[in-house]
């Protein structure tokens, strides 16, 4: 069942590769680094080489002299989509390129150094987080948030950067600091003025996957409470992409028993007849990875030492 679902998903991906070697978010749309990177990771496990070579060439065309990678060849700046390129380079054995991009990522600045002590103190009072902790922003030089921090952590560990690296340890600190106190994560504002902001399944799944990639223990309160929130949220309306990231996040932690949610079965049921998920190539690639082998993105619980 799962094997057939993955085969059909990969067929959908192959059918919608653009002439430039990349993929857009949807069939026929312009190639971008994030969907291209994930499609390449999904295809890599299938022993794909022809599509992979063209896809890698597309990613290389997006590189800047600084070592960064933009969202597409025309983008003059570095982008958060570098995480997907790192994963693709790593999955396809282009380890030198993965390492160079990882180095750029490790040097990427967020806004933590731009805040004055007064601003850090004011943010702590109003929003209850520590703006001095370094994480990763969506665009260089701006504020770090939960989701790009988690995405970069996943890709860096996959590319061989040790979770003991100071930058990754700081990423873990940021994720733990930004959690919603009643459990889970939103985009990165746990509190505002006098009210707690709500967590969301997508942000929580990403944060848990990021922490899981960095080997953060299930025994820690942030993880336990995050898993509890996610288990509850998965009982309600959850999007395709949140289900996929939830499947990935849960694979990081050794949970058993009847209360363990099963987003993967629910995800598989969303596949359309032609093999895609929501007619979205990024989501299809992510679903294919989760349905076949989440260990291609994160250290799964069964494989932990």
């Amino acid at each position: 069942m799962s094997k057939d679902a993955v085969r059909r998903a990969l067929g959908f991906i192959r059918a919608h590769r653009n002439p430039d070697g990349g993929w857009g978010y949807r069939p026929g749309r312009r190639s971008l680094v994030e969907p291209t990177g994930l499609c390449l990771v999904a295809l890599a496990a299938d022993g794909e080489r022809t599509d992979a070579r063209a896809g890698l060439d597309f990613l290389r065309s997006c590189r800047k002299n600084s070592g960064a990678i933009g969202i597409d060849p025309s983008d003059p700046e570095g982008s958060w989509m570098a995480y997907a390129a790192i994963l693709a380079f790593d999955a396809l054995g282009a380890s030198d390129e993965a390492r160079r991009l990882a180095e750029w990522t490790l040097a990427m600045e967020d806004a933590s150094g731009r805040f004055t002590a007064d601003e850090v103190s004011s943010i702590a009072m109003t929003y209850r987080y520590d703006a001095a902790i370094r994480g990763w922003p969506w665009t260089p030089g701006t504020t770090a948030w939960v989701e790009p921090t988690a995405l970069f952590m996943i890709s860096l560990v996959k590319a061989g950067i040790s979770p003991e690296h100071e930058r990754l340890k700081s990423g873990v600190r940021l994720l733990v600091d930004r959690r919603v106190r009643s459990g889970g994560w939103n985009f990165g504002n746990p509190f505002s003025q006098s009210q707690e902001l709500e967590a969301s399944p997508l942000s929580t799944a990403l944060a848990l996957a990021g922490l899981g990639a960095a080997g953060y223990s299930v025994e820690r309160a942030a993880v336990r409470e995050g898993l509890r929130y996610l288990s509850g949220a998965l009982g309600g309306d959850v999007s395709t992409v949140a289900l996929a990231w939830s499947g990935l996040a849960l694979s990081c932690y050794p949970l058993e028993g009847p209360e363990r949610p099963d987003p993967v079965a629910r995800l598989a049921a969303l596949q359309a007849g032609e093999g895609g998920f929501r007619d979205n190539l990024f989501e299809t690639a992510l679903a294919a990875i989760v349905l076949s082998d989440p260990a291609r993105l994160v250290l799964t619980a069964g494989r932990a030492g």
Partner: protein
Amino acid sequence: MSGAALTRRAAVRALAAAAASTFPVTFSACRREEDRPTGKPALPVALLPCADYEPVTLAKALTDGWAATAPPDVRGKRVVIKPNIADFSPDRPIHTDARLVEALILHLRGVGAGEVIVAEGPPHNRDTEWLFRQTGYEDLARRLGVPLVDLNHDDVRAVRNANPRAKALRDLYLPESVLSADVIVSVAKLKTHRFAGITLSLKNLFGVVPGIKYGWPKNVLHWNGIPLSICEVNATVRTRYSVVDGVVGMEGYGPILGTARRAGVLVMGSNSLAVDATAARVMGVDPARVDYLAMAQTIELGSLRSEDILLTGAKLADVRADFVLPPGFSALRAAPRK
């Protein structure tokens, strides 16, 4: 209290003056003939009582308001409706009500629009599938056969910022669905905003800035300065018509955590600044004290002055509902009703 107000007024004046240097008033890309009230007929804005979201109520208000406000000719054209879907809560009216957008789609089809598209790029919740479903837009799009576009993940293209002195956003990446539109209709929610004071048609255009380039919550716009970013985006992407959903708005700690406030009106017109100034007055806010509205006035995106606005429909005094303002924004309050 008055000291605080004076300080704020002085700050707004200083900001407007600074705008002249960061955002020259003389650049032509920003100006449209219809936005220049001097020596021309006043900018028409309609203030329509609208007690609820029933289709009949909305249809009448939209038809009356459209006819009274020199609307754009949409016949055969591709019209993009940009609602505000900042987030979703079952308890708080954060988003533009989908029933209003449904009535607007039917109205636009009725006046001959060639194609109508609904498009939004939510600012911080990346889960657009979930947001579109929860807010009723997914269902609306399916029922009416209208494309529903996630602007955060649309194809994008860099265009030159209309502000020739722009720094952080010299080239502004924008979605193709927006760039290829013949007519953009901003359909905002009448809300307070913890950083900007109030959020209406002009601020609503932050949602056209694509997340794939600028991230969530589009933090580049904040680091660039919210008033300047609002003006740069609106000078570059010109809205041809604006509708503000004030049937039920949000007061207090908006735009997400505020509380529902019924104002029972729609505010409509073809000049966003004039519409926003009128909507601000409905909220009991002096628009001249709102940083980004003052800056928009300085760069001639239209006018916020009462004397430049031809108001039709309800009388302002009859619908004014002094919204509770966010902390730190009490100086925006207009003079009390006479």
